[in-house]
């Protein structure tokens, strides 16, 4: 009986972890796409997640939109915000040292966070439980409706993204630019437009993750994006930065590991473990689980 309940707990934590992991995966995809194309850690990505949650919140409470319509509005507006941020804060630095762009990205991140605090106050807001409150009990393992919806939406979005990247013209152009921007522009691809498209797609995915998380935890605040942002970056590095399936894999692994740490050890060590994973992977296999190391050229 004892061993049976431990198995149950393990399965339960896996379920929770995969839900959390699918959110990390959605965010990590944005990091990985941007990094693949302009070699920038977009520090502001986690904050676009926050903006997405807020847009979703206002669309539901002020404009009384149904949840999925609100989610789409949030994705569109955040995509526009992502493109705007790139044009203002990153594009002028295209030929600057990478550190300059990184500092600018940190600036954008702070601006969104504390701009949010100034405009919307730091007080957390109650996000209506728009995902329903159904709870399934499958032989002792609790799966609730929202978890299933989050997983389903994430999977649909990831499939859509894979389709866009693999089979559409924009997707092909993206792969070409990330492989060699100069050669791609010689082939008639406008890198600036492709970079904008990348930011738009990445930001839309982050906004979707934000809306889902808001509806799941029922609470949002302007600094909610900081930790998920860094964690999603850890996921992207874990899977291999610049590699799409890597981001999904990394996200799910990180989510499951975090659930196990908080379920079996202590939730205060959850973040420590996430950072430890980051450092171990950076030192042992900097290219990530699915990546191949390419030496630096002079």
């Amino acid at each position: 009986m004892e061993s049976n309940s431990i198995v149950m707990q393990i399965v339960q934590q896996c379920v929770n972890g995969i839900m959390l992991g699918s959110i990390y995966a959605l965010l990590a995809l944005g990091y990985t796409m941007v990094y693949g194309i302009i070699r920038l850690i977009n520090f502001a990505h986690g904050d676009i997640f926050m903006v997405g949650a807020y847009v979703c919140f206002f669309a539901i409470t002020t404009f009384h939109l149904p949840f999925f319509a609100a989610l789409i509005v949030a994705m569109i507006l955040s995509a526009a915000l992502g493109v705007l941020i790139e044009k203002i804060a990153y594009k002028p630095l295209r030929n600057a040292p990478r550190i300059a762009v990184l500092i600018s990205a940190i600036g954008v991140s702070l601006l969104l966070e504390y701009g949010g605090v100034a405009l919307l106050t730091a007080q957390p807001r109650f996000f209506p439980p728009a995902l329903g409150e159904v709870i399934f009990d499958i032989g002792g393992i609790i799966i609730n409706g929202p978890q299933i919806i989050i997983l389903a939406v994430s999977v649909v979005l990831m499939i859509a993204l894979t389709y866009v990247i693999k089979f559409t013209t924009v997707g092909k152009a993206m792969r070409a630019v990330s492989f060699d921007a100069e050669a791609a522009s010689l082939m008639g691809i406008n890198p600036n437009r492709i970079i904008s498209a990348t930011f738009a797609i990445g930001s839309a995915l982050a906004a979707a993750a934000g809306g889902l998380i808001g509806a799941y935890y029922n609470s949002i605040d302007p600094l909610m994006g900081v930790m998920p942002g860094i964690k999603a970056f850890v996921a992207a590095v874990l899977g291999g930065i610049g590699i799409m399936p890597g981001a999904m894999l990394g996200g799910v692994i990180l989510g499951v590991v975090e659930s196990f740490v908080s379920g079996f050890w202590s939730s205060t060590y959850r973040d420590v473990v996430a950072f430890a994973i980051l450092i171990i992977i950076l030192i042992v296999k900097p290219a990530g689980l699915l990546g191949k190391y390419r030496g630096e050229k002079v």
Partner: protein
Amino acid sequence: MNKMLKRDMFVLGICAVLFALFQLGFTFKIIGSFWQLNIILVCINIILAVSLNLINGYTGQFSLGHAGFMAIGAYVGAICTVKLALPLVVALIAGALFAGFVGLLIGLPTLRLKGDYLAIATLGFGEIIRLTVLNIPYIGGASGLTGIPRLTTFAWVFWLMILTVFIIKNLINSSAGRACIAVRENEIAAEAMGVNTTKYKVMAFTVGAVFAGIAGVLFAHYFYLVHPSSFTFMKSIDILTIVVLGGLGSMAGSIIGAIVLTFVSAVLASYAEWRMIIYAVLLIVVMIFRPQGLLGDKDLTERILNRLKGGKR
């Protein structure tokens, strides 16, 4: 040699005069307690900024974990005085050595990473340090360590600040410093010229950590308490903003940046979010219009000194 000594004496004289002026101001209450607090903060921030500049500006290794080393210094120093009842000198030495040791431990593996990877790894380490402190009940855990005696005086911070600037400036002008600058300019070329890049990167990182530790000890013994929330990622960003604004690789820039931004944040103390918004806009605007920082990598002190003496460079 003699010329250099003379110049150092001259600078030391100016510092002594400055110190005497401020000290008189404090004792005769010409300078109020609000300004006294901020002047002490300026000195602590100068120590932090100059030491971070050694890592980020002169050696070109982008670290985002400086607050972590400050936290180590603050906590080790506080343990020395509160739990072991040792004097401040011992606390300073212990805090500095311990922070330097951790810096060495962290630096050895992570400095193999480059650019943004290093930034993220140091960010991770900074957070691990903070989260670990948060989980140790012996030093107060999440509620912080209180009851620290106020042993930091203006004399301590002022002269330690001068010492920090002096040591780091001399380090940069030495052959080790030139090696660091070579690493910043082009790591591969430096290596090809026979510079042991790992050695100098780790050295810069460790020295930076030592001085961050000293700043942490001073900080803890001025504010009566240390709290994990004082050493978040945001604190690292604060220090980074000072360094970036003044100029990566400019000693005078870091000092002026520390003075300006400390007073800016003092004025905006009751509008914390606006302070961060201003910092954010500063970071973006400086990067877009003047990526080398306000003073670039120019060294003002040399120029002013030369002009004062009417000499040529």
